């Protein structure tokens, strides 16, 4: 039986790497990929808690399903927005998209 701490430490590492990617990368697409890593870490946590701490209820598993659903919607919308920005400004770098009003 694997202790629950192993899963929690793994998800901490994954989430931290996601934080690093979101903060350090410049391209919006690469930032989105790091956000996906963070969502994965959250899913691992949800499922680990559901399986280890309350095996009779599936709340954590259901939440993980919703996380995946929302992540799919988020990726679709965000990439459409990135495409739109690229079409308007000829760049997908978040550093260059700093004008609130034109």
């Amino acid at each position, binding site marked *: *039986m*694997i202790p*629950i*701490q*192993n*899963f*929690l*430490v*793994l998800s*901490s*590492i*994954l*989430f931290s*790497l*996601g*934080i*690093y*990617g979101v*903060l*350090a*990368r*410049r*391209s919006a*697409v*690469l930032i*989105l*990929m*790091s956000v*996906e*890593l963070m969502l*994965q870490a959250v*899913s*691992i946590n949800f*499922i680990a808690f*559901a*399986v*280890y*701490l*309350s*095996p009779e*209820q*599936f709340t954590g*598993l*259901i939440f*993980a*399903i*919703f996380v995946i*659903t929302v*992540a*799919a*919607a988020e*990726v*679709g*919308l965000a*990439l459409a*927005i*990135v*495409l739109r920005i*690229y079409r308007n400004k000829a760049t997908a770098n978040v*550093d260059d998209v700093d004008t609130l009003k034109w």
Partner: protein
Amino acid sequence: MSYEEVIFYFVAALTVLGALGVVLARNVVHCALFLVLALLAVAGIFILLSAEFLAIVQVLIYGGAVTILILFAMMLTRVRDLPSAAGGLDGPQRPFAALAAGAFMGLSILAAVSTEWPGETEEITLVPFRDLGESLFRNWAAPFEIASLVLLVALIGAIILARGEEGE
């Protein structure tokens, strides 16, 4: 060390390797491929947690759809040409990003290891598909319907945003 733990450490190492590749690789297409590795390894973690349904969904949605979408966006926005432009893929704020991520990692690992988790079960019970589906469609029917609405809105929004200029 039981064979379960050996498998866990192997899959966890794959996951971390993939994640490191995503945030550190210098070639954006390699980043996307490392993301596939990380996501499939996370599916392996789900199987170790006996959440088979989620592992299948993970492979279908992340391994298939999301990565393809990201690769398409990369090709359409020409992120590949970035390194030749000034500065490369990472901004000048890299050390601070590493500091923030390291601080968060230290804190959360400390919290996870030092906490005494109550009611820990001895044996992982397999979750039957049937019970999961019943729970999803009975107890969680309203969130399920809202999720489908969210997907519909995202679908329409993505089409309208990415459509072209001819309507304006």
